[in-house]
């Protein structure tokens, strides 16, 4: 297989999946912006003392530009999310994030760097080029996105190849709220475990046979770190959302759901962006066929459908839950900050 064919195979997304991913990533961009506002970044930047030495001329930027850029990021993320000129606004979001990083580069967050690197790629998701079997710009962008996530795992693992980290003292600090942190052997084992998990994920996400295990390992890692260290989860949501790019399309193996044309199931079909179920409208009763004996009846089919969702998409369900939690949490923080900081009086 040539390199181009490999990139096409790994980088080709169905249009519904591409739209879903863009909406999710746009939503994460919006959460990131709300987090910046809620944590006071608009006011709290270190000023000219922390500006990149490369860009002295940017020191003279007008005072309104910084909060203005952050407002533009929020609007851009929203536009990406709803699919309004998504490519243009994804590029604008990426550029804005690079502005923040370059002008105030000590103020960075690892998650912001991921946003700055990923949004320009997202801007290219809609570029089709030749189409068909030919390599397109969109294929390269999706492939680059997946490779970026793998490289982050790889470098995170390489950076943990450190005697101090592997001795467990870093985790002891993070877990100091728990009595378990006093168990040096356990802390060292956890340190080795996190290194192994990251190294595994860097590779296993690309291997179809290991992908399902990789999703579960990733779910454990990305929930375990924030829950154990009592830190924020947004950085981890980036990765769990990124797994969507690695999810295989079920193709012909999807379970069949037959439903009467007039039933509410047709609305559910529209929500199945990933094509996890083969929906077939007809005149017969509601029936679920997944290899064994067909199941009929609204409740039984509902349970089967929910079961399919839980088994096939534990990561998606977790991500959806935290999307909801964070949307409320970050909006509230941002609103409180804006009200408390007197933006209204300043205006």
């Amino acid at each position, binding site marked *: 297989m040539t390199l*181009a064919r490999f990139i096409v195979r790994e980088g080709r997304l169905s249009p519904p999946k591409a739209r879903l991913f863009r909406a999710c990533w746009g939503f994460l961009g919006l959460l990131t912006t709300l987090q910046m506002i809620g944590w006071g970044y608009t006011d709290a930047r270190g000023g000219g*003392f922390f500006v990149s030495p490369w860009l002295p001329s940017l020191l003279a930027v007008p005072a309104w530009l910084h909060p203005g850029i952050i407002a533009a990021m929020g609007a851009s993320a929203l536009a990406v999310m709803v699919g309004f000129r998504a490519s243009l606004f994804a590029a604008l979001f990426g550029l804005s994030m690079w502005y923040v990083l370059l002008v105030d580069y*000590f103020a960075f*967050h690892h998650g912001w760097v991921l946003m700055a690197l990923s949004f320009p790629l997202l801007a290219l998701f809609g570029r089709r080029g030749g189409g068909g079997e030919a*390599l397109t710009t969109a294929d390269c962008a999706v492939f*680059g996105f997946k490779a970026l996530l793998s490289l982050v795992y790889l*470098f995170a693992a390489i950076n943990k190849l450190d005697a101090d980290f592997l001795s467990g003292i*870093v985790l002891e600090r993070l877990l100091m709220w728990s009595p378990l942190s006093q168990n040096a052997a356990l802390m060292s084992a956890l340190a080795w475990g996190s290194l192994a998990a990251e190294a595994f994920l860097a590779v296993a996400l690309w291997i179809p046979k290991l992908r399902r295990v990789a999703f579960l390992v990733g779910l454990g890692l990305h929930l375990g770190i924030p829950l154990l260290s009592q830190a924020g989860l947004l950085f981890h949501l980036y990765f769990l959302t990124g797994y969507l790019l690695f999810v295989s399309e079920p193709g012909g193996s999807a379970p069949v759901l037959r439903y009467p044309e007039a039933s509410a199931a047709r609305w559910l079909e529209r929500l199945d962006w990933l094509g996890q179920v083969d929906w077939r409208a007809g005149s017969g009763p509601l029936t679920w066929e997944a290899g064994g004996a067909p199941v009929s009846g609204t409740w039984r089919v509902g349970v089967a459908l929910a079961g399919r969702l839980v088994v096939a998409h534990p990561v998606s369900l977790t991500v959806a839950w935290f999307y909801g939690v964070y949307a409320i949490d970050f909006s509230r923080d941002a609103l409180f900050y804006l009200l408390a900081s007197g933006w209204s009086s300043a205006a």
Partner: protein
Amino acid sequence: MTGERLRIGGLALFLGGVLLLGARPFVPGLNTLWPGCAIGAWNMYRSRVDARLLTSVRDGDREVYFSGGEAIWHNAFILTAHGDLRPDLVEQFAEFLSRGSLARAAADGQGYSPDAEVVVELVYRVNNQPEVRLEARRRLAPAEPR
């Protein structure tokens, strides 16, 4: 075919850049790009950093502590989550605070003399190394006329 090569070239350029950023801490000489800053290095939680940052306005015997750490996003130079511990920025930070509104707000209404100073104290320990204590002082700049 030319378009295909261009696309693969663009992808290689992007991934090469990501690799370059990630490799900075390990390759001597490469770290002149954003020196000391961990952008793209993905070195989350590599070291255990225990740090206390204290900021105050002092005038003779009087002192008022304030939350100067709020002026640094994510407390970037003293945080375990980041690999870029930068205690050398304490002096710059004191300079910044001496001109900013946070310190003046702490001093407001206290009748401070022109000799009032902003004091930044950073006490930190990395892994099992000995504790380090740094202090920087700058004279508090007068408020700008409105």
